């Protein structure tokens, strides 16, 4: 069974803290993604990565950075957490092959609250 695992289900952090959200996939996928989900706004892409040590900005990268040192692991970093970063964060992975007919697999999400 395919699996995308996010390290925490719930996190509470203080304003100004550096926050790490970890994601691991066991499907040997090249592509990995970080989204945030907010009521009424759907899922918005923060960053994605096509391969180890590669990263691309998504639609809302401000205030975030990412790290991909190993193929299976993709980390989202909030350099200095702010209250407007309180949200549900979703990690996903997919394979770029199969002629482009690929679906993304999602983790269970991390609900981050910044106080």
């Amino acid at each position, binding site marked *: 069974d395919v699996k995308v695992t996010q390290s925490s289900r719930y996190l509470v952090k203080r304003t100004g803290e550096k926050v790490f959200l970890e994601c691991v996939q066991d499907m040997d996928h090249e592509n990995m*993604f970080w989204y945030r989900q907010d009521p009424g706004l*759907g899922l918005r892409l923060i960053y994605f990565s096509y391969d180890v040590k590669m990263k691309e900005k998504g639609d809302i990268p401000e205030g975030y950075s990412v790290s991909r040192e190993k193929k299976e692991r993709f980390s989202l970093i909030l350099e200095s957490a702010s209250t407007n970063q309180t949200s549900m964060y979703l990690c996903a992975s997919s394979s770029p092959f199969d002629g482009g*007919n690929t679906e993304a697999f999602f983790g269970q999400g991390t609900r981050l609250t910044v106080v």
Partner: protein
Amino acid sequence: AQSVSQHNHHVILSEAASLELGCNYSYGGTVNLFWYVQYPGQHLQLLLKYFSGDPLVKGIKGFEAEFIKSKFSFNLRKPSVQWSDTAEYFCAVKGYSGYSTLTFGKGTMLLVSP
């Protein structure tokens, strides 16, 4: 840039009613289309997908969707909803390239009353 528009933010139905959730997309090329579902307290799950071929695709739990290329639409349907279908539904589009990203609509919250 690709985008997805879902017609309804909230839908309330009684059990056994028929369901149709609208989805329109904007993308200048061949697309892959998806409907995802998120049940209360659970993670996002794939409901169905369209890659090519028959524009009428069937998914899990009796859901189906029809891809109408001329209308840039991918509407989700179910002939008879159940209370257990209460969830949030997301339409998503991806370009045909394996390196394209997935763009989501804002979601439709479906509440089915018993």
